[in-house]
């Protein structure tokens, strides 16, 4: 189906032909299922949760299908619905508080801590070699430790390479909020990786 056919459709036909409407939605939206799922797994960390989130996204998208203005941008539209569901679904006061003291967080520097402790004295690429020690599952666990309000913009940035303006539109918040969340999301990640390095004995981390 061409985009022109989609946009030029008379608005009253949808109500008369619900089966056609569903087929039209499926034809446009289902080719993006794999990508939407990939983002969902990155957001939830679990295949089962990602499947639920994807199903919820498609149901909500179908309900709002008549409001889609640019069918050629349906993937971005689906991801916007997914992102908002992901933020809303898990929003809880406890998760927000987990971030802790923001001023202290902003000062946190993994770069400085690695440099100060120098855990790999024979390395010519200290910071790179430090990171190389982490198994995949620890990096994923660190990402999941982020509250959703921080994880969702970061995952969208990393996966979709969106501009701040597009992220703000996707998340329904001001650009300034996106910027501060992405800043803090990375700081929380740095802190989580440092804690993990201590747990695994990569560093001593005295006094941190």
């Amino acid at each position, binding site marked *: 189906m061409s985009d022109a056919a989609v946009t030029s459709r008379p608005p009253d036909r949808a109500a008369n032909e619900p089966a056609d409407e*569903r087929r039209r939605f499926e034809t446009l939206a*289902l080719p993006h299922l794999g990508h939407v799922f*990939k983002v969902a*797994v990155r957001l939830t960390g679990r295949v089962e949760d*990602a499947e639920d989130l994807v199903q919820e996204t498609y149901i909500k998208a*179908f309900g709002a299908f008549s409001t889609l203005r640019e069918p050629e941008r349906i993937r971005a539209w689906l991801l916007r619905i997914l992102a908002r569901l992901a933020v809303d679904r898990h929003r809880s006061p406890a998760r927000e508080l987990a971030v802790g003291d923001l001023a202290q967080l902003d000062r946190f520097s993994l770069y400085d801590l690695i440099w100060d402790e120098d855990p790999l004295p024979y390395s010519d690429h200290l910071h790179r070699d430090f990171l190389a020690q982490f198994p995949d599952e620890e990096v994923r666990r660190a990402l999941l430790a982020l509250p959703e309000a921080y994880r969702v913009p970061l995952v969208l940035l*990393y996966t979709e390479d969106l*501009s701040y303006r597009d992220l703000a539109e996707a998340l329904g918040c001001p650009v300034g909020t996106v*910027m501060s969340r992405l800043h803090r999301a990375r700081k929380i990640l*740095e802190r989580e990786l440092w804690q993990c390095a201590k747990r695994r004995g990569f560093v001593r981390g005295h006094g941190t």
Partner: protein
Amino acid sequence: MTRISCEQAVQQFFAYLDRGLSGEPLDDLEAHLEACLACCDRLAFSRQLDAFVKSRMPDDAAPAGLEARVRQALGRLATET
């Protein structure tokens, strides 16, 4: 152009990496980076960390039954309304 401190420069790193800086703030940061090796090194680490986390994110393909499950849910929805 305004001379900025290392502390001010570091505050702009993520916006710089995300291509979210323009105009004078971008010029100020680039001028600082040209003169400050320590900040270049810090910026390189921030870039490295982004690439590192990106490369370690899960990359699962959708399970085989998911499309059918979504089609079914949409079908149920259509018959309910």
